């Protein structure tokens, strides 16, 4: 699934500028980044350093002001919105800090969401959803609604949702930021397992050094620039 040269993520000269009341706010300034398939990379940096923005660009939910973002062999800047949406459903599994489960759907239904975009039959979808829930240790919680789950369990459901369609890349934005130490450790262990056992490429944003240490490679971002 990697691009030419074997990189799954390949960024060159990426800039991102936000406009706030006619004032230009540069967030990313000339980012060059390469991540190989199967890597587990942590992205650290202080608040406002541009970590989440960089993650959003790689996940195809935001566009750079300048530069090239090539992920899973596709130059994202060239894709039309509908193609980009289809690309995201095929290649990206997104894990949010605040879980972002749909409150009116059960754990099962939340996990099933990405599969609704595929041509899989109901039976096949069910098999995959139950497998994903089993993988995160929540096979008994399928019929529970998010409000009936603990924070750690909600994040596990969110991880199951992120992996259920077997995406090329998992991006996690502060996945343990809203959890206590025990649950945070469990989630990080789960991510490590996904990387080591299922060979998932993971890019995780965190400001927690202990969390970052779980990754094989740690990147530091400061004031929109990747530190050497």
């Amino acid at each position, binding site marked *: 699934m990697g691009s030419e040269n074997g990189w799954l993520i390949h960024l060159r000269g990426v800039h991102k500028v936000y406009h706030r009341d006619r004032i230009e706010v540069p967030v990313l300034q000339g980012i060059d980044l390469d991540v190989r398939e199967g890597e587990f990379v942590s992205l650290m940096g202080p608040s406002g350093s541009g970590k989440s*923005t960089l993650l*959003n660009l790689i*996940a195809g*939910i*935001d566009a750079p002001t300048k530069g090239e973002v090539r992920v899973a062999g596709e130059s994202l800047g060239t894709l039309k*919105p*509908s193609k980009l*949406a*289809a*690309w*995201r*459903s*095929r290649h*990206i599994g*997104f894990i*949010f800090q*605040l879980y*972002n489960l*749909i*409150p*009116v*759907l059960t754990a099962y*239904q939340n996990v099933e*969401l*990405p599969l*609704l*975009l595929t041509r899989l039959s*109901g039976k096949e979808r069910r098999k995959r959803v139950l497998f994903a829930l089993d993988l995160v240790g929540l096979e008994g919680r399928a019929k529970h609604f998010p409000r009936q789950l603990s924070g750690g369990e909600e994040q596990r459901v969110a991880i199951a*949702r992120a992996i259920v369609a077997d995406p090329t890349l998992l991006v996690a934005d502060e996945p343990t930021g809203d959890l206590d130490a025990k649950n945070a450790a469990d989630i990080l262990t789960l991510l490590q397992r996904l990387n080591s056992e299922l060979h998932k490429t993971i890019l995780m944003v965190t400001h927690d050094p202990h969390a970052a240490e779980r990754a094989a490679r740690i990147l530091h971002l400061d004031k929109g620039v990747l530190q050497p």
Partner: protein
Amino acid sequence: MKYFRLILANLLRAKRRTFLTVFSIAVALFLFCTLRTVITSFEASLRASQATRLVVRHAASLVFPLPLAYKERLVQVPGVTGVSYGNWFGGFYQDPKNRFAQFAMDVPTLLDLFPEVLLPQEQKQAFLSERTACIIGRSLARKYNWKLGDAIPITGTIFPGEWRFTVRGIYDGKTKDVDENTLFFHWDYLNESLPEGRRNLVGIYWLRIASPDLAADVSRRVDAIFENSPQPTKTETEKAFQAGFISMIGNVQLLLTIVGSAIVFAIMLVTINTMMMAARERTREIAVLKTLGFSDGLILRLVAGEALLVSLFGGALGCGLAALAFRESDFTAGGFFPNFRVLPETVLAGLLLAALMGILSGVAPAISAARLEIASALRKVA
């Protein structure tokens, strides 16, 4: 279909709001069907009018009667092949609320001139041979659970007193437009029961003519005969008579159309506002769905689908209730709307209107949801 569960789950997240929206649409469509049925009932009475029948009444007003003696003169008018006559009775059954149309008619000519009133031969004979007999329409019989042989007490208002009629026939209409909510009894019975000064007076004459082409000529001739008499006449086709009767209460169609449109428009604005509010509250969720790969087009269809589903459900409820309510109650507005039935085409029009409301109320929130920028939406509500 696999997205239906998602649409339904979203609609049920705020049950009270969804219920109130559905309910308001149902009320609007119920009123639409009711007002539309008033119009179609008018139209049905016009459709039921025969082109070969003329109505003769007092030139000044329906209130003033004509002498019975006119009958002999009318029969002799060239082109006239039959004459019948009768009086509007205007009574009620047991309670003033129980009003329906009653006509005292010259029975032999009634059955001859009104072939759309279908009655079995033996019931015809029974009706003809008994002075206090009456026949009633099938709907009326059903409404009051009257059967052959029942005695019906009617309190007269134009002709005061307690009157008793025995049901000797239950008629069916030849078409669905024919009124089945009327009671006909012998004009002779009424006439003989009246004081001397009120006898031998007729409310309306009906003339059968050989061909519809003769209508204008026969009308002119009849009115010319009585032009200089103390009781001049006005003769017109049955259709013109019905239309004139309806126009007495103004331009009903226009009035009802304006009222109906205003109700539907007001409810549509409320629905638009509700749907926009519902979509705005879910900004983060919509952004999450787009992150998962839901395209702008799919998001648009999902949000629009919610509005459409709510409107169609409300519409079906309103139209269904209207159809059921007026069918079960046999509502006739005191005999003024003898065929007050919600027609299938009215229900269809109501459902199409509901669908239109759904589409219009869903457009704005669906477009704004589809245009939502994921990153900024997640940032704003984070």
